[in-house]
């Protein structure tokens, strides 16, 4: 297998597919996903339930059960291909080179063991050090993620801690072996906003300090705007748009991305504007539409001649080298509609913020 394909990116995912056979047919949870992340950068994967965003991250981490799913494609981590690698090899990387944090910390912390015992074990699996050294590392990391009196916390059980504290313990555990890639699957969804703000701050600080590459999986466009450098928008198991953060928020070209941005109420804008939801429901991953997966909910498909949206799957077309979109609309049409929809948003801007300059 050639590693020339990695183009020197730290994480390079190419044409990743995860298919689950089921009684009703094959569930195409992830279908041909391609993206990459550099060190020190954050890529956000955005999408709703069933978009395939979580399965994508599990496939990268080697956490998809190969007995129940067919995983194909290539995932390069620092030049090393993981999909064809032996499970033991992926396991040795997991926790050390790459780590994951989840929405629900209780699902990754063992209820029977103290925080200290679990953290010490996490260190000793990957490092040949004594218990005392591991305990010292654990204490330092708890301190680093902002847990007060870490010495005492080491003796606590997960249920003794608040939700925000547990999330910090899980982040501490993920960072113990200084992973170069951190996958965060809805890391703040279960948390209150003030705690979320603390955790986002923490992730940003740690990234600056260690140069970690972060893959952030979320449905919250506010968190994306706050943390991400690049964004992948997923729908029905596919990447429908990807690009640098400002392209996705200010120059989006995919009708689904417009729909997402129009669905979110914004606290900083005039309140009387009506939300513009996406009509209909997300697709079933078993019976995906033959043409564009978004076609049944897309208000613009009639603008494309010859019912192309019904019969032909659009390719991910590059608009710029970084920005790509999967849509049959003509580029000029897309730009026109995008401007129209975004000006509707901008018109809601309150007075007094127009002249602000970026830092």
């Amino acid at each position: 297998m050639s590693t020339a394909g990695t183009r020197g990116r730290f994480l390079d995912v190419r044409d990743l597919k995860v298919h689950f056979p089921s009684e009703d047919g094959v569930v195409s949870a992830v279908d041909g996903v391609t993206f990459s992340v550099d060190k020190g950068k954050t890529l956000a994967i955005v999408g709703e339930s069933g978009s395939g965003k979580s399965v994508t991250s599990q496939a990268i981490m080697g956490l998809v059960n190969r007995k129940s799913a067919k995983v194909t494609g290539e995932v390069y981590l620092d030049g090393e291909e993981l999909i064809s690698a032996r499970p033991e090899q992926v396991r040795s990387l997991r926790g050390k080179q790459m780590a994951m944090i989840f929405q629900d910390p209780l699902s990754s912390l063992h209820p029977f063991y103290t925080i200290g015992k679990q953290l010490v074990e996490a260190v000793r699996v990957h490092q040949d050090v004594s218990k005392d050294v591991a305990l010292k590392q654990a204490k330092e990391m708890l301190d680093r993620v902002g847990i007060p009196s870490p010495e005492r916390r080491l003796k606590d059980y997960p249920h003794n801690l608040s939700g925000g504290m547990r999330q910090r313990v899980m982040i501490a555990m993920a960072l113990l072996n200084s992973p170069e890639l951190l996958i965060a699957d809805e890391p703040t969804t279960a948390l209150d906003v003030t705690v979320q703000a603390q955790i986002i701050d923490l992730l940003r600080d740690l990234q600056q300090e260690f140069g970690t590459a972060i893959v952030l999986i979320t449905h919250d466009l506010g968190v994306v705007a706050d943390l991400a450098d690049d964004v992948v928008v997923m729908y029905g198991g596919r990447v429908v748009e990807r690009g640098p953060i400002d392209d996705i928020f200010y120059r989006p070209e995919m009708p689904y991305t417009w729909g997402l941005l129009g669905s979110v109420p914004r606290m900083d804008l005039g309140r009387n504007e009506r939300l513009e939801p996406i009509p209909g429901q997300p697709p079933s991953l078993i019976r995906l539409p033959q043409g564009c997966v978004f076609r049944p909910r897309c208000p613009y498909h009639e603008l494309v001649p010859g019912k192309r949206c019904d019969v032909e799957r659009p390719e991910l077309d590059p608009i710029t080298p970084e920005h790509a979109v999967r849509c049959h609309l003509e580029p000029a049409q897309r730009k026109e509609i995008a401007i129209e929809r975004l000006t509707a948003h901008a018109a809601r801007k309150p007075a007094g913020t127009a002249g602000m300059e970026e830092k």
Partner: protein
Amino acid sequence: MTAVEESGTGQVLARDNALLRVDKVQKYFPISGGGVLKRKVGDVKAVESISFDIVPGETLGIVGESGCGKSTAGRTVMKLLDPTGGKIEFEGRDITHLSRKEMVPLRREMQMIFQDPYSSLTPRHTVGTIISAPFKVQGVKPARGVQAEVQDLMARVGLNPEHYNRYPNEFSGGQRQRIGIARAIALRPKLIVCDEPVSALDVSIQAQVVNLLEDLQDEFQLAYIFIAHDLSVVRHISDRIAVMYLGRIMEIADSEKIYESPRHPYTHALTSAVPLPDPRTERLRERILLQGDLPSPIDPPSGCVFRTRCPKAQQRCADEIPALRELAPGHFGACHFPEEKHLLPA
């Protein structure tokens, strides 16, 4: 030392056309100790002396973080829980001590929508049975028959009336929430308490349900109490917002004011913590990061309950409970040292 409580929540309840009036309502949950006698050892002070009113057709948002008492507040004013203290008036009538049975006729006027459409709908009943339940309970016989009325309701909330005989598991999350809404509006109530009605839904579906709630409000002149932790959604749908912390109301104001010029330091921290879906604005914004964790509602701090995490706390905050007082017309805050300057959203 016990803190002094300032009096005077009268101003909050100044509107005489109030549909619902909540006056210093408390809800405590007793904690019993171990042992045979199950002696009461303390109280979880879930809601502590909250006051607000709501007029017909208005939406009052209640926001706050987990454990602030917002859901308990909603259930208590609906009389699903018995208040420990205070007074609740509905259309001028004192309903504080009405029994469950005495409340039944009033249920036609006040309804509730819950967060989890999966668990609030009986799985073994058809949609038709679920939506028509209020007619049965209240002994109401619609002129055109129950089925026609229910099918009208289904169409009104965006469900296919032909699905009358289907079961809840055949519907998606957003559709199930529509079933809950159809049931809540069946008797044309005047007030609906919505407890986290869109939190479990995907954003595109969430927007559909928010728009539906707004349309129904216009059509039927409904008043909503909209309880949620998502400030952006609450701010979008509410006319006024009450911010709760540890069982108490910290601030009540018009929903624009809550974001643009919060007067309570907690509201300020809360709004600054919400990330906006706008990368350029995010790069310019400064967050107020709160330190520490929420204190226990069993043994809340003396004086102002927020003082242990408040960047502006002084001695007075420990000695004296701040009253919810009018800081600007229609803008109430419970703080000894409220924020003065106009805060631009940035």
